[in-house]
C-alpha cells in the first residue's frame, strides 16, 4: 500500500523550547559539536490506491500542520 510521509517543523522564527532542552542534554553528554536542535513531527499515511496529491497537500497544510507556526513537507511515494 502506498505510503505518504509528512514532516512538520516549527517555522524558523518560532522558538522551540523542546529542541533547546534536547540541545542542553546533548551538551551535558559531551556532544559539543551539535549547534542546534529543532524538534518536529513525522507522519506516515497509508493510502488506498494512487495518492491524490492535492488532497494530501490539503490534509498536510490544514490538519497535520498549523500554518501559523509550522512548515510542512509532503513526500509522495516514488516508484
Amino acid at each position, binding site marked *: 500500500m502506498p505510503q505518504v510521509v509528512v514532516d512538520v517543523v516549527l517555522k524558523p*522564527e*518560532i522558538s522551540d523550547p523542546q529542541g533547546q532542552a534536547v540541545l542542553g542534554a546533548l551538551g551535558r553528554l559531551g556532544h559539543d559539536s551539535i549547534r542546534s536542535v529543532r524538534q518536529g513531527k513525522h507522519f506516515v499515511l497509508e493510502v488506498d490506491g494512487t495518492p491524490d496529491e492535492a488532497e494530501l497537500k490539503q490534509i498536510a497544510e490544514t*490538519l497535520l500542520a498549523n500554518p501559523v507556526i509550522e512548515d510542512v513537507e509532503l513526500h509522495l511515494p516514488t516508484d
Partner: protein
Amino acid sequence: MRIGVITFPGSLDDVDAVRAVRLAGAESVPLWHAEHDLEGVDAVVLPGGFSYGDYLRAGAIAARAPIMQDVVDRARQGMPVLGICNGFQVLCEAGLLPGALTRNGHLHFRNRDQALRIERADTAWTHDYATGQRIVVPVKNGEGRYVAAPADLDRIEGEGRVVVRYVDGNPNGSMRDIAGVTSEDGRVVGLMPHPEHAVEDLTGPSTDGLGFFTSVVTAMVAA
C-alpha cells in the same frame, strides 16, 4: 439569555464554566461536541481542559469537531464566543482568532494566581471592566505560550486585538505578554487564564473573573 458550554472528550472546566454562567444570571446550556446543534443559544463558552489529550496540537482535533462548524458559522454572524485555556487553543486552531498557543518557554506546567491588565473593555466579554483595570485570576497551562510571526504580532497589536496582558510576571513566555486576544468585531475572545475559577470568594483568589460572564449578559440585554 442562554449561554452554551461545549464539552469535548477531555474537557475539565466545563462544570465551572456552567456555574460561572449561572452566577452571572444567565441560563447555562450544556452542549456536546459531536452534535450539530447549538440549541438556539445566544453565546457559547469553550471551556478549559485537555480535549483529545492535546494530541497532534492542543485544541487541533476539537477544532474539527462537528459542533465547531456551527460555532464558526454563528461566530462569523456575530454570536459571542469565549474560549478559556484549551478553548482559546481551539479558537486559534479553528481560525476564529489569530496566533497560536505552544509549549511554555520554560517547559513547565504553571499553576498560580495571575495578575492581568484589561487592554480592551469594549468587547462582548469585557464590557464590565475598565480599560487598564488590574485583575487576578488563576492561570494553569503547559502549552500557553502565545506566538505569531513578528509581522502578525505587529498587525494584532496595531488592530487593538489584545484583550488581556500578563502583568507582574509572564507565566509561560507568551510573546509581548499576550494573555488573550479578540476577533475583529470584538465578539470572539480567547484567553489562557481562567476567569471561571475566580467567581466566588470560597474557591477563587478573587471574584474578578465574573465580569467576563456578566459582560456578555449585559451586552446581549443591550442588543
